[in-house]
C-alpha cells in the first residue's frame, strides 16, 4: 500500500517537474529572443524588419506555451493528489506540446515566418516575405499545441466529473445553493485549487475548440486559397481563442496561491461559497472578455462592445475580492518568513493586481481609443505574465525546494533576486506603459520617437531582470542539490 502510494506520488512529481522544466527552458530561450527584439527597437542591435517580426512571432507564441506548460504541470500534480489521473495521457499531451514548439521554432528561425500567433486573416497569406511551407508549419505547430491542451483538458474534465459527481459537483452548485443540506450530509466541496483545474479544463475545452476551428480554416486556406474566410469572423475567433488561452495561463498558475501560500504561512485556504461563486464568474468572463479586442472594429455588433467593457470590469471582482484578498488574508499577521518562495507568490499577486489595473483601464472604451495597439497593451500582459504567472510558478518551485530541504536563501541572495527581478522588471514594464501613453504603436520594427528611448530603458530593465533570474536559477540549483529532509506537502 505504501509503495503504491509512493509511486502514485512519483507519477505526479514526474509529470510536474517534466512540464515545469520544459516550460522554464522555453521561457529562458524566449526571454533572450524578447530581449533581442526590444534591443532592436532601442537601436542597440538593429535587426532588419523581417528578422524582427520572425523573432517577435516566436517570442509571443513561445512565451504563452512556456507559461501554459508550467501551469498545466503544477495543476496536474495538484489534481493528482485528489483523484485518479493517467500519467500516459499527460505525456502524450506533453509530446504534442513539444512537437508544436519545435514546429513554431522551425517555422520562425529557418522559415522566417513573421506574422505573429494571433494573426488576423487574410494576414499570414498576403504580402509574405517567407516561404509558404513556413506558414503551414506555423499553423500546424499551433494546432498541435492546441490538441495537446485539449487532451489535457479532456483528461482533467473526465477525472473531475467522475470524482465530484458531474458538472454540479465539479462546480459545487449544491454546496452554494443548498449549503445546509450539503454540509449536513457530510459532503465536502472540492478544494480551491480544483476550481482552477475545473475552469482551466472547461474553458480550455471551449478555447481549444474555437482555436481548432480558426486554425483548421487557416490551414485549409493555406492549402487551397480559393476557400475565403470572413475577416470579421476570423478576428472574433482568433481573439476568443488567443485571449482566453493567454488569460487561462493565469488561472492555471493561481493554484500557487491556494496551495503554496498555505505551506508558507502554515494556515489553510478553504473553499467557501464566495470563492465558488467567484470561479463561476471567472468561468464566464474568461470567455466573453475577448470582446475588448474588437472595440476598434465599429462593424462589430454594438452590444458586444458594451458587454465587453462591463465584463472586463466585473472580471476583476473574483480576483480582488476573493482570490487575492484571500491570499493577503493568509499572509496578514501569520508570522510568515519571507523566503524566496513566499516572496515570489506574494509579489505575483501584486503583479496580477497591477497588470489587472492596466487591463481594466485599457478595457474602458474611451481610453481604448488612445491605447488600442499601442505599447500599453504589451505593457499590461507582460505585467501579468512576467510579474504574475511566472512568479507563481517560480514561487511554487521554490516553496517545494525549500520544504524539501528545510532550507532557505540568505538575505543578500533574496535582495539581489528581488532587486533584479522586481526592480528590473518594473523598469522594463515602465518602458511599455510610458511609450504606450505617448501613443507609440506596438509591433513596430522601427518605432517613432519617443519609442526608442523607452525601448532602451526597457532593454536595460530586461537585462537587470535577466541578471536576477540567473541568480534565481543558481539559487534553485543550490537548493535542489541539498539533501532531502522532508516530503513535500
Amino acid at each position, binding site marked *: 500500500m505504501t509503495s503504491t502510494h509512493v509511486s502514485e506520488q512519483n507519477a505526479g512529481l514526474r509529470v510536474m517537474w517534466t512540464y515545469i522544466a520544459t516550460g522554464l527552458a522555453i521561457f529562458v530561450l524566449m526571454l533572450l529572443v524578447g530581449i533581442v527584439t526590444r534591443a532592436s527597437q532601442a537601436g542597440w542591435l538593429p535587426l532588419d524588419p523581417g528578422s524582427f517580426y520572425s523573432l517577435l512571432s516566436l517570442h509571443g507564441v513561445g512565451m504563452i506555451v512556456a507559461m501554459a506548460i508550467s501551469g498545466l504541470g503544477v495543476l496536474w500534480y495538484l489534481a493528482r493528489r485528489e483523484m485518479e489521473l493517467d500519467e500516459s495521457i499527460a505525456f502524450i499531451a506533453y509530446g504534442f506540446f513539444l512537437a508544436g514548439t519545435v514546429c513554431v521554432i522551425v517555422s520562425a528561425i529557418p522559415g522566417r515566418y513573421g506574422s505573429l500567433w494571433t494573426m488576423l486573416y487574410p494576414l499570414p497569406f498576403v504580402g509574405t516575405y517567407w516561404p509558404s511551407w513556413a506558414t503551414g508549419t506555423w499553423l500546424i505547430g499551433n*494546432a498541435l499545441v492546441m490538441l495537446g491542451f485539449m*487532451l489535457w483538458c*479532456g483528461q482533467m*474534465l473526465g477525472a473531475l466529473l*467522475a470524482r465530484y459527481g458531474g458538472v454540479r459537483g465539479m462546480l459545487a452548485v449544491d454546496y452554494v445553493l443548498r449549503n445546509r443540506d450539503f454540509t449536513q450530509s457530510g459532503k465536502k466541496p472540492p478544494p480551491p485549487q480544483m476550481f482552477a483545474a475545473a475552469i482551466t479544463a472547461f474553458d480550455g475545452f471551449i478555447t481549444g475548440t474555437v482555436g481548432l476551428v480558426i486554425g483548421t*480554416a487557416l490551414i485549409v486556406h493555406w492549402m487551397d486559397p480559393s*476557400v*475565403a474566410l*470572413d475577416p470579421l469572423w476570423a478576428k472574433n475567433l482568433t481573439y476568443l481563442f488567443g485571449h482566453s488561452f493567454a488569460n487561462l495561463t493565469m488561472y492555471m498558475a493561481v493554484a500557487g496561491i491556494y496551495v503554496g501560500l498555505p505551506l508558507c504561512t502554515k494556515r489553510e485556504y478553504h473553499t467557501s461559497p464566495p470563492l465558488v461563486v467567484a470561479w463561476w464568474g471567472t468561468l464566464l468572463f474568461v470567455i466573453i472578455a475577448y470582446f475588448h479586442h474588437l472595440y476598434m472594429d465599429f462593424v462589430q455588433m454594438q452590444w458586444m462592445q458594451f458587454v465587453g467593457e462591463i465584463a472586463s470590469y466585473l472580471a476583476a471582482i473574483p480576483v480582488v475580492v476573493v482570490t487575492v484578498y484571500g491570499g493577503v488574508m493568509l499572509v496578514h499577521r501569520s508570522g510568515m518568513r519571507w523566503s524566496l518562495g513566499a516572496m515570489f507568490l506574494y509579489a505575483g499577486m501584486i503583479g496580477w493586481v497591477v497588470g489587472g489595473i492596466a487591463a481594466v483601464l485599457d478595457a474602458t472604451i474611451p481610453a481604448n481609443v488612445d491605447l488600442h495597439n499601442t505599447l500599453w497593451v504589451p505593457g499590461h500582459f507582460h505585467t501579468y505574465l512576467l510579474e504574475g504567472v511566472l512568479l507563481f510558478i517560480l514561487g511554487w518551485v521554490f516553496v517545494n525546494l525549500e520544504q524539501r530541504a528545510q532550507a532557505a536563501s540568505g538575505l543578500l541572495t533574496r535582495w539581489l533576486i528581488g532587486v533584479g527581478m522586481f526592480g528590473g522588471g518594473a523598469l522594463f514594464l515602465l518602458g511599455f506603459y510610458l511609450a504606450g501613453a505617448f501613443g507609440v504603436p506596438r509591433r513596430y520594427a522601427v518605432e517613432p520617437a519617443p519609442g526608442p528611448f523607452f525601448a532602451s530603458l526597457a532593454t536595460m530593465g530586461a537585462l537587470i531582470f535577466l541578471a536576477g533570474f540567473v541568480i534565481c536559477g543558481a539559487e534553485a540549483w543550490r537548493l535542489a542539490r541539498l539533501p532531502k529532509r522532508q516530503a513535500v506537502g
Partner: protein
Amino acid sequence: MKERRVIAGLVLFATVLFALVPVIRRGAELPTAQHHFVHALMLAGAALSGILFAGRTRGGRRGAVWLVIATLVPALAMLLMWPSKYAYFETHPYGHLTEHLALVVLGFLAGFGGERYAAGIGWAAGIGIFAMGMLAIGGYGVVRSVPNTIGIAAAPTSRANIGGLPNQTRGAALFAQNCAVCHGTVGVGGEGPSLKNERSRKSLVQAEAWIQNPAPPMPKLYPGTLSLRDVADVAGYVETLR
C-alpha cells in the same frame, strides 16, 4: 439498457439517412453556409448515437486511446468540411456521399470515444464537434456580401491599362509610398538593398518581372497593391536612379 441501444441505433439510422440526401438530390447544391449547417446536424446526430452506444463507463479502466481519438476527430471533421468549389468531394455526388458518411463516422467517434474514455467527455466532444460545425457557418468559406459604398475600384491605383511609356513622376510617388520604407527615400538602401544604378543590373523588363514576382524577403505587391501600370511606372522610376 437495451432501450438505450435501440434509441442509439435509431438516431444513427436517421443520421445516415440524412447524410444520403445528396444522392437523391443530385447536383442541387446548397449555399456553403446552409451546407455547413447540414454537416453540423449530421455531426450532432452521429455524436449523440455514439454517446448512447458507449453507455456508462464509470469505474472501468480508461483507455487513453479513446481520449486521443475524441480529441483529434473534431479537427479532422473540420478538414473534411473543406468548403471549396474545387474540392472533388463537394462536386461529385458519390464523393459528396463519401464525405457525408465520413463525417458521420467522425461525429460518432467523437461521442463514442469520449464517452468510452470517461462519463461526460462524450458530451463535451459531441457538443464541441457540433459547435465547430455551427461556427463554420459564420465564415469558413462563407464571406458575407457587405455593400461596399466606397467602391475600391475607384482607388488611386486604378489607372491601369493606359499603355505607353512608364510615367516616372507617378512611379516616384508610388515608390515613396510602397518601396521607400525598405529601399530608402531615393533608393539609397536601408533594410532592403540600395537601388542606385539598378539599370546596370536589371533592364526595365527584368525590373518589372522582379517587382511582379520578387523573392523573399521583398513583399509581393502585385497584383494586390500594385496594378500592372503601377509596376511599370515604379520600374521606370527605379531605372532612373543613380
